[in-house]
């Protein structure tokens, strides 16, 4: 029994840490109708500021906390003022994508300043533990619970008894009406971002002390966990977020007790997807509450596609086909890479741009394709030329089946659900050792070959990718100009109108994800054979974000744009190899600048 007591204490402590994250997300969602994907990055900033204050300045705990509070408040203000304010009035997806970009930038800055290596946070509380009923509670547990509870109390007092707190609540309920009472919405937003960031930063510091280790990569998980807790409690519901966090913390802790550590996140994300499907308004809202999407109208920026002179595409294509004749293996390598990414971008531009389902878990399709092809070739002994198209079909089927339950979601919820589904895929790959070899990964995947012709060389890979990409692009263009393409765009632009004209939305979304899964699956399969080794982290969430950046850069829904976006984002950083360590930082900044100044992308949305 004593072990259960300890698991409960642990779950409660983790729940408090999640609550500090989720409350901020709920506040931000309340006033800005925005899920802040940069939230975990502020948490990392908080952790590192705390670490730096302790190790470099030798601050005692209260001063450490003060440093974290001040810096994170400033970061929050900067996020709102510099990153988001200018986006008011632009398409609904713009601020969401901007927070992703801001997150990337913050993570990279932390990495550049403090290196990607893990750091140990010195313990600043006494090491004693008291024994209660067979289990123990440590001083740090009490500190975390104390900070969690007192933050909640301060926040309650702020919202209930201060003028600014009233303005926050009024803005959350009806921001137009709040303005007409004289409330300055910008000030409210800024205050909320500051408060949320402070809570997030404190959470990061406490986590660092609890696990005695911090690293820049923990931001993504923190954002996700905060979002899971937020969804459990209901978007924008502050007390709900606290309850959701405790539920999540306890579920994880008991899950670890029953199944082991590697299942921990699986529990969190299954909980997330289950909530989105059955109780998208959270545990505390009545079931029949309004449809789970406060956002109506166009989610993505609209524009006309850029018209190119007729000769451009054939000439570029010819140049691409002749590239291997230059005999520059390095250049070809980059070319082949760009082409593989372009297939992924094609897939995502259809799903996100044409149908308007902004997927944040697209890399999971690569993983499915890669594993399917690799396993077929390795374990079933299939020839590579057969395994790759089979992997495409498997990905189409499996990918569609996995997102099928999420088809009724829209807007933000699609992004969150696909993010969760993507994480689940990666965790299943990690834990299904019998099939996937788990953490060891898949090694010795045979190289590319086509009916006995070896394509393992750089030239071979390049030509194969080029041919496959051209075929996929032609197919996609054909689909877009057909009845099917029009129906997809109709669903994106006005799903209610589409439905009232007898369009069975789910079927068409399934077709889009099916085709998207096929293209991405092929891309993943080719990648697997080129790399010869893949594991559950090869196709991670950052790849999904990169793919989305490519699609936005090219112009959502635009086939040529997707190819251009992929080529630019893969090839350009290679041209500036000296800047290699700034690569992801550059992606983040590019994403932010695009959203601000050219939301329709280089080639325009279709």
């Amino acid at each position, binding site marked *: 029994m004593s072990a259960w007591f300890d698991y409960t204490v642990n779950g409660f402590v983790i729940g408090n840490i999640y609550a500090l994250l989720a409350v901020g997300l709920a506040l931000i969602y309340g006033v800005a109708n925005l899920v802040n994907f940069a939230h975990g990055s502020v948490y990392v900033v908080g952790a590192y500021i705390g670490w730096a204050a302790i190790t470099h300045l030798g601050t005692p705990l209260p001063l450490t906390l003060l440093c974290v509070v001040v810096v994170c408040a400033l970061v929050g203000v900067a996020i709102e003022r510099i990153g988001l304010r200018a986006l008011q009035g632009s398409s609904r997806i713009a601020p969401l994508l901007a927070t992703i970009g801001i997150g990337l930038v913050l993570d990279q800055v932390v990495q550049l300043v403090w290196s990607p290596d893990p750091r140990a946070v010195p313990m600043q509380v006494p090491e004693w533990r008291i024994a209660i009923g067979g289990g123990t509670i440590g001083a740090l547990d009490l500190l975390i619970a104390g900070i969690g509870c007192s933050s909640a109390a301060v926040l309650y007092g702020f919202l209930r008894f201060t003028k600014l707190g*009233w303005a926050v609540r009024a803005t959350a*309920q009806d921001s137009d009406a709040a303005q007409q*009472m004289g409330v300055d919405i910008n000030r409210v937003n800024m205050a909320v971002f500051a408060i949320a960031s402070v809570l997030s930063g404190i959470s990061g510091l406490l986590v660092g002390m609890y696990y005695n280790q911090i690293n820049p990569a923990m931001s993504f998980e923190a954002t996700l966990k905060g979002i899971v807790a937020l969804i459990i409690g209901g978007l924008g519901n502050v007390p709900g977020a606290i309850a959701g966090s405790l539920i999540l913390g306890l579920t994880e802790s008991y899950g670890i007790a029953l199944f082991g550590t590697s299942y921990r996140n699986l529990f969190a994300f299954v909980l997330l997807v289950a909530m989105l499907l059955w109780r998208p308004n959270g545990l505390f809202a009545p079931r029949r509450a309004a449809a789970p999407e406060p956002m109506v109208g166009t989610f993505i920026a609209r524009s006309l596609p850029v018209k190119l002179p007729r000769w451009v595409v054939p000439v570029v294509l010819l140049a691409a086909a002749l590239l291997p004749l230059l005999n520059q293996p390095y250049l070809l390598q980059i070319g082949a890479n760009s082409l593989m990414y372009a297939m992924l971008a094609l897939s995502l531009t259809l799903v996100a741009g044409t149908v308007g389902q902004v997927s944040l878990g697209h890399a999971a399709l690569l993983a499915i394709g890669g594993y399917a092809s690799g396993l077929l070739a390795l374990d079933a002994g299939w020839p590579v030329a057969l395994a790759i198209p089979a992997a495409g079909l498997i990905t189409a089927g499996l990918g569609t089946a996995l997102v099928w339950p999420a088809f009724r979601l829209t807007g933000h919820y699609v992004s969150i659900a696909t993010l969760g589904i993507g994480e689940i895929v990666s965790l299943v790959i990690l834990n299904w050792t019998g099939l996937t070899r788990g953490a060891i990964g898949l090694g010795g995947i045979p190289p590319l070959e086509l009916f006995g012709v070896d394509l393992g060389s750089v030239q071979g890979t390049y030509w194969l990718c080029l041919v496959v990409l051209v075929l996929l692009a032609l197919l996609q263009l054909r689909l877009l100009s057909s009845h099917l393409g029009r129906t997809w765009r109709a669903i994106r632009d006005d799903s209610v109108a589409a439905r009232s004209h007898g369009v069975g939305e789910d079927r068409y979304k399934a077709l889009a994800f099916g085709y998207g899964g096929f293209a991405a699956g092929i891309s993943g399969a080719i990648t697997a054979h080129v790399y010869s080794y893949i594991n559950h982290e090869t196709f991670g969430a950052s790849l999904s974000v990169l793919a989305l950046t490519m699609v936005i850069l090219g112009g959502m829904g635009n086939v040529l744009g997707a190819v251009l976006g992929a080529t630019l984002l893969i090839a350009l950083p290679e041209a500036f190899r000296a800047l290699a360590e700034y690569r992801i930082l550059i992606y983040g900044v590019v994403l932010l600048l695009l959203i601000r100044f050219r939301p329709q992308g280089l080639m325009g949305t279709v």
Partner: protein
Amino acid sequence: MSALLELQGLNSFYGPVQVHFELSLEVRQGQIVCLLGGNASGKSTTMKSILGLQRPRSGSIRFDGADITGLPTPRIIRRGIGSVPEARRLFPAMTVRENLLMGAYARSDKPGIAADEARVLALFPRLAERLAQRAGTMSGGEQQMLAMARALMGRPKLICMDEPTMGLSPLFVDRVLELIQAINREGVTVFMVEQNASLALAIAHHGYVLQAGRIALQGAAGDLLQDHRIRDAYLGGAATG
């Protein structure tokens, strides 16, 4: 009597669609002025322009002697304009009292706010019984009263009301109109947008009829009530020009 609010030569657009064509009107100190018109005549846009929620492409809006064209909404409110928005737009999860105090958000004189709270509750005794109730749980008529009371809490010189009788039962319509007159008697100028012309003109001093973004008719409320053209105009105007 001087003009408290003066719109001059407004041209407003929604994207490529022009909503106002050289719209001019004035609201004199101490009066009740109503703006009538059918659907899509530009009434609500007029209200949004005054409150700074929609910026006209050209033209000017002057309030209390100063140009307020293009100011952000909170600053316009702070100059002494109270708003009773279309469909009331209360803060549904806040109590009646919290809604009232939100109305005084732009003020910081605590004793004055307390005095105004008492004054407003005397005018709206029904609200006094329900101070701790959540605003979203009240009936439509009560909500309309709360919206009016909330606007009064800012101690405005001018109250702008967008369709104050919309969706109310006939009993409450009469009550709301009486209250508008009572508010006006206390010295607050009222500018209201209405679809129900005869009701609005019955309590107003002056009226304007908006038709496809232009003022088609204007005059003393009594004269307008007698005018046969008013019927055509506010029904949407089959007659052109």
